[in-house]
């Protein structure tokens, strides 16, 4: 009942009740006190009268004493004292007179007579007439006794009246006290009860409110708010409930904001699309209070949505989702991208769904009843879809719709970022490859320039050496012929002469031999510097390979009869005619094949395993606008430091006299500078060496510098 009243009303009622009781009690007590006070006044007046009567009696006694004393002592002091006592007695009698004038008048009468006789008696004593004085004093004594008796009776009556008045006052006070105690006890009990009820009606809800407020302060938005009654505490409870709801919404909004921020941060910082999408779908499910969510990719080719990732979805559902893409425009889910805004299915059982039956069956079987789908859009381009499903039916709130839309936007952003990133990476790779090619081309140019310079130098040196060398060769040959003629001329020379001729002949033979060797070197140098003299023409590369193999093999066998090697050919017959200088390319092949023979033979000769078989493998392959030739031997191989110097002129690993160091250098010039191709080498020590040549079908790859050198 208290809770239905406002606290102010309760307090007013409580105070009013207390005041009413207080006023009633006070009025009663005031009345009783008034009556009592009147009784007390009466009693006091009576007591005062008694006192006055007693005082009058005392004064009368004093007066008689002093009169008697006066009669004896004749002292005027006694007379004055008697007069003073007489005056006091008169005063007391004056005060007593209103009580009973008649009786006081009687006293006065007796007093006057006493005084008269006494004064006469004193005078007689003063005049030394003692007998008369005694007689008069005896008469005075009679009146004295009468006055005494009157005063005593007055005192007695006044005492009786005072006692009666006092008893009345006491009885009234006792009654008032009893009634007052009863009323006070009742008031205290009722007041305590009312106070308890009022306090209880205030304190208990306040305590519950305090607990609720403490809970809210501690961040517990799930705390129970006490029921809102019609009073002020009810108003506080309603306000607190609103505050709690607002706080809850704020926290949820904040959480959503934080989630969106986290997703946004992830989108901005994480290029792992799976991570971002997993986070998005998890947050979307969490903040939409749903049970599961999925993200779909959109295949622009098939115009289908394909399952990508999920959160909270059962394996069975995932399996169905993977197996059953959703076609664009077939139902509410896939219609969302068309509309460009989220679409809802408020009851999976109550709406005509356009998705595949398996999808819906799976959702229904797993207890899902409603869903919301939002498209992942990049402008108007569809990137995918975000779907959130839940067990409850009904519309998703506008906040959740907005949130899902925001998550979808973030997802789209992530997908777009991922695609942009992928594109960026691809471009980066291309750039890096181009950069590498550029660096290689730059190195090739530097190398070509160096080679060109060397070639010019070599040509100059060779030209200058050629003539003296011709003199050496010619005159050594001529001298040897002259010695032969000298021997023939001498006929039968002596031993000493014959020995000298023989020695000289041998010397000249060696001079001629080394001269020829030197001439070969010079010739090669001139040939190198000249850069080839043949003309380009459409040639059959496979035929050139076969020809060069045969020449090289037989050349090697010519030098060393024990030489043997397995020749493996893998020639691409699809290679058509190619525009090259056949003589120069043949030289390249001869160089490569000769080096391969040498390396394989060396490995065999250097104690390879018994089962080792020297093999030279040659492959050709059609590459469209170019042709690839691979020459691989299973020889000793080359360490990296050798590889870096491989194409430098005059660099050789062969013993002196067995190589000029110009073979690969010339080959490099022919392939790279003359034909615009490439030459690469791969080798492992003790295992193999493989040269990979690429020859363009035309002159497109020929650089200006190379062309210039070639010219």
């Amino acid at each position, binding site marked *: 009942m208290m809770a239905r009243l406002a606290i102010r009303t309760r307090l007013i009622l409580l105070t009013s009740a207390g005041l009413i009781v207080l006023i009633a009690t006070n009025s009663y007590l005031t009345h009783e006190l008034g009556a009592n006070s009147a009784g007390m006044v009466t009693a006091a007046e009576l007591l005062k009268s008694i006192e006055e009567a007693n005082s009058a009696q005392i004064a009368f006694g004093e007066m008689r004493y002093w009169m008697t004393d*006066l009669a004896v*002592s*004749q*002292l*005027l*002091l006694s*007379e004055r004292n008697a007069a003073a006592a007489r005056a006091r007695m008169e005063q007391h009698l004056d005060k007593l007179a209103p009580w009973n004038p008649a009786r006081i008048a009687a006293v006065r009468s007796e007093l006057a007579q006493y005084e008269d006789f006494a004064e006469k008696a*004193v005078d007689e004593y*003063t005049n*030394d007439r003692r007998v008369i004085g005694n007689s008069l004093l005896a008469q005075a004594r009679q009146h004295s006794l009468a006055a005494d008796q009157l005063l005593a009776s007055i005192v007695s009556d006044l005492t009786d009246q005072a006692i009666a008045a006092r008893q009345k006052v006491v009885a009234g006070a006792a009654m008032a006290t009893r009634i007052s105690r009863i009323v006070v006890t009742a008031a205290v009990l009722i007041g305590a009860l009312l106070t308890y009820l009022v306090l209880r009606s205030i304190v208990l809800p306040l305590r519950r409110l305090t607990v609720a407020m403490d809970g809210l302060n501690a961040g517990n938005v799930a705390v129970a708010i006490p029921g809102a009654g019609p009073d002020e505490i009810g108003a506080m409870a309603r306000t607190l409930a609103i505050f709690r709801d607002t706080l809850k919404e704020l926290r949820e909004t904040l959480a959503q904001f934080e989630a969106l921020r986290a997703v946004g941060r992830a989108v901005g910082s994480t290029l792992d699309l799976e991570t971002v999408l997993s986070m998005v779908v998890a947050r979307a499910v969490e903040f939409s209070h749903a049970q599961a969510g999925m993200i779909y990719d959109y295949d622009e080719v098939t115009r289908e949505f394909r399952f990508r990732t999920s959160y909270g979805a059962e394996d069975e559902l995932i399996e169905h989702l993977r197996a059953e893409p959703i076609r664009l425009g077939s139902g509410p889910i896939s219609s969302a991208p068309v509309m460009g805004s989220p679409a809802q299915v408020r009851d999976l059982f109550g709406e005509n769904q356009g998705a595949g039956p398996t999808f819906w069956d799976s959702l229904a079987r797993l207890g899902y009843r409603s869903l919301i789908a939002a498209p992942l859009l990049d402008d108007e381009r569809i990137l995918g879809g975000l779907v959130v499903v839940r067990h409850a039916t009904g519309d998703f709130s506008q906040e959740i719709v907005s949130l899902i839309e925001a998550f979808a936007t973030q997802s789209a952003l992530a997908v777009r970022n991922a695609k942009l990133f992928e594109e960026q990476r691809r471009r980066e790779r291309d750039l890096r490859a181009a950069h590498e090619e550029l660096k290689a081309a730059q190195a090739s140019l530097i190398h070509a320039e160096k080679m060109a310079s060397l070639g010019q130098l070599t040509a100059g040196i060779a030209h200058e050496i050629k003539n003296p060398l011709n003199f050496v060769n010619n005159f050594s040959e001529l001298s040897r012929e002259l010695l032969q003629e000298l021997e023939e001329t001498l006929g039968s020379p002596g031993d000493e002469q014959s020995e000298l001729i023989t020695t000289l002949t041998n010397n000249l033979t060696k001079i001629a031999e080394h001269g020829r060797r030197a001439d070969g070197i010079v010739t090669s140098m001139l040939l190198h510097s000249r850069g080839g003299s043949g003309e380009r023409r459409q040639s059959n590369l496979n035929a050139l390979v076969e020809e060069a193999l045969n020449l090289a093999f037989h050349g090697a066998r010519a030098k060393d009869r024990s030489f043997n090697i397995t020749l493996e050919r893998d020639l691409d017959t699809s290679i058509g005619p190619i525009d090259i200088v056949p003589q120069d390319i043949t030289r390249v092949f001869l160089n490569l094949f000769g080096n391969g023979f040498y390396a394989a033979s060396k490995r065999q000769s250097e104690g390879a395993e018994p089962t080792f078989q020297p093999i030279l493998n040659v492959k050709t392959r059609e590459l469209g606008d170019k042709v690839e030739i691979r020459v691989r031997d299973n020889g000793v191989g080359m360490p990296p430091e050798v590889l870096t110097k491989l194409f430098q002129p005059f660099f050789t690993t062969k013993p002196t006299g067995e190589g000029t160091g110009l073979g690969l250098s010339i080959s490099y010039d022919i392939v790279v500078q003359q034909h615009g191709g490439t030459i690469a080498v791969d080798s492992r020590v003790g295992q193999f060496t493989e040269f990979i040549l690429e020859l363009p079908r035309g002159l497109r790859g020929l650089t200006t510098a190379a062309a210039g050198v070639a010219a």
Partner: protein
Amino acid sequence: MSGIYRWISGWAAGLLRNQPRVFFVLLVAGVMPIATLGTENSTDDDRAIAQSLAEMLQDARTIISNEQDLINDPQLGDKHLTGEVVLDRAIELYSRATGVDPRKIDPKSREGRLLRAMMEAIVQVVDGNQGTINTKGTAFKGFIPAVFGRLVAEEFGQLAKGEAEVKVTAPPELVRNRKARPDKWEAEIIAAKLLDPAWPTGQPYSARVESNGRPAFRVMVPEYYVQSCLACHGSPKGEMDITGYPKEGGKLNDLGAAISITLYH
């Protein structure tokens, strides 16, 4: 007239011989105008008789005053302070004061007759109170000069047989015994004359007036407080004196009493 002069000269001689015993009344005599005394023979005689009676009374009272220690000695029974002793000492004082032996005054003269009555009264009062005076074990016996004076005056009235009366009275507020109350004439003289600041100190007042229906010559002899008086009548006022009576607060030389002498004709 010659008697008066004899009395006055004897009084003055006594005054000069016995200064310690001077009573304030005696001071007045020296300054009493001679002219006043000699204006009329009868008046002068009356005044001389009155003065003589007053002197005798005062002398006897002086003796009683001087013997207070003896009277109030509780250890001593018979003090041998009889009427005769007191009278002899009083006569001695009287003679010293006046130069006249009162016993030699003609007993047939009015003065001699009345003075003898006074001396007889002194003797009777002292003798009548021998029991009191000789009481052993009681210190203060109340037989003080004032009581003595009053008793002598009363006794004198009896012995004078209506020819003269002596009363020791005082201003009304100082009277202790109702017998000493001043009558109307006395009260008027005290108030108008004796208490008048202009009244010469110690000067008696006399007049021929009617008293109790009889022609009489009345004299009022002022008495002033001396130091011994103030033990009972001095300060502080209201404090009880030895007799149990409140002190009047009197000061030295204040008018303390008056001896009223009435000589009937």
